[in-house]
């Protein structure tokens, strides 16, 4: 993406609260107009701090943040024109729902009639048209959430920030809301920067995901890329389920390599971020890419002992002991022709070398 | 075993002791004004009496007034056996039946053999009260404030132009109105005659008006010497004994002006219904005997109520200061002096204090 395309741009941004620890280390990030970008990471990884810097509530210690081509380092939050949805919604409890929505319009000195019309239209959009007179406390969690979204949208900002907006909802409602937010994004074409620690949420909603760890973006790519081609062990482990086998790099050949596991087994894998022979490596394997009784065409063949079977309806989780790792998970699809498995049974397993990523060890 | 023995013997000892107290000696509660004044009573009355009779005195302080006596007597739970009160309070409490009557003929004769009725200064014996001392309200000034020539008359006290500085006055109508009239040229002996007329009252308040802006009001007897010492006022009205003790005891450079002094009595009264009436009466007789009254005068400069005590008054207890000239009753000090007219104040205190309060607030 060329610099001029970037709608939001972090350039060499660093942030420290106490003068000793950098919570954001040299952040460079471009966000395109209309993009849904998620900042994903464990708590303390710096993702919320980035959002707060973008919103203007925290100053960047170093570097620049650009919005639509101009640096906003010295623009106070209320002049940035950014909509924001807060973790606990931050709906004003002393105002009715309609008053909450009217607030951003009133501070913009909009006419009374226009305000009324916009508030009603936005409330209708989130299907809360009849709830304008209620106080936020009289609404359910999901309704409050929608009011919060509506309030961030009502003044038609080009950029909306969302700080773990679904964290307070139960699982079912959360999934429901994910779709709703996604739909709003698609309908309005606004740019959304979304912060969450929930990887499912990130994968479901985002155009691109920035995985944060320790103040650094570990990987910035589409959800699919993130899942299929993690760039390092952290991303591999953080996104989706993942089996880990430890060994030493024996041979490197282009993008392929062989790794000798600690029990002596030799595994063929994709080389991702190991660079030299003799280096320790962790192999990352998605549980659904492993086959029991594998076809000959698969490059890697091992034997495992089944320790536990968990029936999950659409698939069966098989925990087995493979090459000294007894937390090795294999997902077996629940097919009509499935073979019988039992605990303690020895089975042959295998996978393609392209499904096995040789990553760093951390 | 050993412990039980010890306990038993202790119990026996305690019960013996308690029995002894009941059998041989009683305890009475003597209530007075505290500070240097109570100390003088303890030295001159309490200690000798306890030594002579084996009885015990519990000394309590109060701030004057009949309120507590009234409360105790009306509740039928009298814990104060003998109380040192001002004359007007003694008369009022007696009129309201709150006090035991005291037959003056049972008081001991003077050391020179004069009967009590003749030995006590006129007006110091009452139906329910026996005076112990004569005290006075005078005004005093800080010699350092007026190094050349200090004030000498009551008129000087009211002359702020000639003797600049703040004035301390007791918050209340009593004594202040007398002072004002004397300062305005009324002779001491005519003060109450003038004050009995509405014009006289107006005249007194008019005189007070002239210094109203320069007054610091005090309420407790300990305050005036403190106000002088702090430099808050250049002169103040005060109880003569308090000023004397600040000079004799603490070496302050204060000077008393006796002109226009208003002297009054402190009297012993016995609240009605005390369980220790006999013992209280015994103490009253002992403490108002010639020698005790004279002895008290060596601790504080208040004049004894008995004529026969005057000749025995000597020096301050631990310094070479003749007490005679310090007494309110000393002829030199009585040249232009007023005796507080309890009847006048009994009739007019309510009204004049009301007016005084209104005047203060206005």
């Amino acid at each position: 993406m060329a610099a001029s395309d970037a709608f939001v741009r972090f350039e060499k941004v660093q942030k420290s609260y106490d003068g000793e620890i950098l919570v954001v280390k040299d952040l460079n990030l471009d966000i395109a107009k209309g993009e849904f970008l998620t900042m994903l990471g464990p708590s303390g990884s710096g993702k919320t701090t980035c959002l707060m810097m973008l919103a203007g509530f925290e100053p960047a210690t170093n570097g620049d943040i650009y919005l639509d081509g101009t640096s906003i380092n010295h623009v106070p939050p209320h002049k940035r024109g950014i909509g924001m949805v807060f973790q606990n919604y931050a709906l004003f409890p002393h105002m009715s729902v309609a008053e909450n929505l009217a607030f951003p319009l009133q501070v913009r000195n909009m006419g009374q009639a226009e305000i009324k019309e916009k508030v009603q239209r936005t409330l209708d959009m989130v299907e809360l048209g009849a709830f304008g007179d209620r106080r936020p406390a009289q609404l359910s969690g999901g309704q409050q959430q929608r009011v919060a979204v509506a309030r961030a949208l009502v003044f038609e900002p080009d950029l909306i920030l969302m700080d773990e907006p679904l964290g307070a909802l139960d699982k079912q409602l959360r999934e429901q809301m994910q779709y709703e937010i996604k739909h709003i994004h698609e309908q309005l074409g606004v740019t959304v920067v979304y912060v969450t620690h929930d990887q499912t949420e990130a994968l479901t909603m985002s155009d691109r995901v920035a995985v944060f760890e320790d103040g650094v973006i570990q990987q910035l790519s589409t959800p699919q890329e993130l899942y299929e081609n993690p760039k390092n062990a952290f991303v591999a482990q953080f996104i989706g389920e993942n089996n880990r086998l430890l060994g030493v790099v024996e041979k490197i050949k282009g993008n392929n390599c062989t790794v000798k596991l600690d029990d002596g087994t030799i595994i063929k894998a994709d080389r991702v971020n190991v660079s030299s022979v003799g280096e320790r490596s962790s192999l990352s394997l998605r549980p659904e890419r492993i086959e029991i009784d594998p076809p000959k065409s698969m490059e890697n063949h091992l034997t495992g002992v089944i320790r536990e079977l968990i029936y999950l309806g659409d698939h069966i989780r098989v925990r087995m002991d493979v090459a000294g790792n007894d937390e090795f998970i294999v997902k077996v699809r629940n097919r009509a022709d499935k073979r019988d498995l039992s605990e303690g049974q020895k089975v042959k397993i295998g996978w393609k070398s392209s499904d096995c990523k040789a990553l760093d060890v951390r | 075993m050993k412990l039980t023995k010890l306990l038993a013997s202790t119990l026996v000892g305690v019960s013996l002791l308690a029995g002894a107290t009941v059998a041989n000696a009683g305890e009475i509660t003597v209530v007075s004004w505290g500070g240097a004044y109570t100390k003088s009573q303890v030295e001159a009355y309490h200690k000798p009496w306890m030594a002579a009779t084996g009885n015990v005195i519990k000394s309590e302080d109060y701030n004057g007034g009949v309120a507590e006596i009234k409360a105790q007597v009306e509740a039928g739970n009298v814990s104060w056996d003998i109380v040192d009160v001002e004359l007007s309070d003694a008369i009022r409490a007696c009129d309201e039946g709150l006090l035991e009557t005291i037959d003056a003929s049972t008081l001991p004769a003077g050391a020179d053999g004069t009967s009590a009725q003749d030995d006590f200064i006129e007006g110091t014996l009452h139906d329910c009260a026996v005076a112990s001392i004569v005290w006075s309200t005078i005004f005093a000034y800080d010699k350092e404030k007026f190094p050349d020539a200090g004030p000498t008359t009551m008129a000087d006290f009211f002359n702020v132009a000639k003797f600049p500085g703040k004035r301390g006055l007791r918050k209340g109508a009593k004594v202040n109105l007398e002072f004002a009239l004397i300062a305005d040229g009324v002779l001491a002996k005519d003060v109450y005659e003038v004050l009995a007329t509405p014009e006289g009252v107006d005249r007194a308040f008019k005189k007070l008006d002239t210094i109203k802006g320069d007054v610091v009001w005090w309420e407790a007897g300990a305050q005036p010497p403190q106000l002088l010492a702090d430099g808050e006022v250049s002169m103040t009205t005060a109880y003569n004994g308090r000023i004397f003790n600040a000079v004799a005891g603490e070496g302050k450079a204060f000077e008393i002006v006796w002109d226009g002094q208003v002297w009054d009595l402190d009297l012993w009264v016995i609240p009605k219904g005390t369980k220790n009436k006999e013992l209280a009466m015994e103490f009253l007789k002992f403490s108002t005997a010639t020698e005790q009254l004279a002895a008290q005068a060596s601790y504080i400069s208040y004049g004894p109520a008995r004529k026969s005590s005057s000749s025995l008054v000597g020096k301050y207890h631990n310094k070479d200061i003749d007490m005679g000239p310090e007494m309110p009753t000393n002829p030199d000090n009585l040249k232009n002096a007023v005796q507080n007219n309890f009847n006048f104040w009994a009739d007019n205190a309510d009204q004049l204090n009301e007016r005084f309060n209104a005047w203060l607030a206005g």
Partner: protein
Amino acid sequence: MRISIHFREPNHMTSTTLDQKDISDASADALIMVDGVPLKQKLAETTKKQRSRALLLTVPLVLFLVISFVIPIGQMLFRSVHNPAGSNVLPNFAIAIQDWDGKGYPSEAMFELFVKDMQNARKKREIGKTVGNLATRMNYTIPGTRSLFTSTSRKLSKVTEGPYKEALFKIDKKWENKVIWRNLKRVSRDYTIAFYLAALDHKFDDDGDIIAADKLYQIYVSNFFKTLKLSAIITFLCLLIAFPVSYLLSILPLRTSNLLMILVLLPFWTSLLVRTTAWIAILQTQGILNNILVSIGLVSDDGRIQMIYNQTGTIIAMVHILLPFMILPLFSVMKTIPPSYMRAARSMGATPFTAYRRVYFPLTLPGIAAGTLLVFILAIGYYITPALVGGEDGLLISNLIAYHIKSSLNWSLGAALGTILLVTVLVLYWVYNKLVGIDKLSFG
């Protein structure tokens, strides 16, 4: 923007809340239990035992309140209108005199009863029923009559036969004054509003009509207003100082704010007298503050500022003493306001001031309401501090009440003043409730 989005979410959430309400409203009365007892009755039965046990737990508190609060206040109310000195001291005369029409003198029979009653009272010297009690009561009505009663009582022992009227006039010519007898008739009634009149700077004139007291003696009404004014000033200053402090406390990290909170509460652990005395040491003309001002040349040695023993002193000392009562409710309310509200407001385009005015400030109102009410009511009844540092013009109504309870012993007037103060506070409370709503208060 013109779009419509259809949610797949079933609408149960929005509709059930309404439906449930409708159902409960409409059909609760009709619900019958399986054993045929209506639901409400059944519920009452089952909770009755629980409730009576809970009630039992409050018995000590209720008893305590009755003994220490209800009874004394009831007594105060009673005493402010009930003063039986007349009928106590002169039981027979008090009844007889009521037949007198107030013209001329009472009848000889009434005079006889008066003398007999007076002699009796002197002989019996019963507590609360002595001539002195009557004299005190009469002196409130006609100043200067106390000694007339007490001295007459002493001389009356010699009067054994009539005509009693002449005998009295012989003892003291003042008895010829008809005003005394007219007032005596009024004093002989046990119930009177005279003390309320006095407390409102009014009195009965000689004909029994209500008139304003002489201007020179008017003090209470103006003092009530002064007390209200000073309390309002003190409350306002407390709010002014406490608001930023509480705000700071609420946003600081817990450890720092705890430390600061201890500093705020420190005054609570120091004796009130010590604190007030400390203010005297600081504020008096030769005190620390004036010394500093003189030493830095801000004021001359002769021009030291009078900061104590006046209203200024009262205000300073009381603001200091009452400050924690403002800070605590404010702090507890501010603590619960998440910083995200302000951020939300600013993200929506509000300037810091607008965000503060429209969002933060309204949310602190319950704390402000509680704090101001608390401080105002405490200030209006404050007594010791104005007594010590108030000087001549810093005295509040409670000081006058204390004066009548402790010094002048005019308890009835003290009670009347106290009752008026109580009613004033209740009225203010009621107005406040109308304006703010007590249920909105938050004391933390």
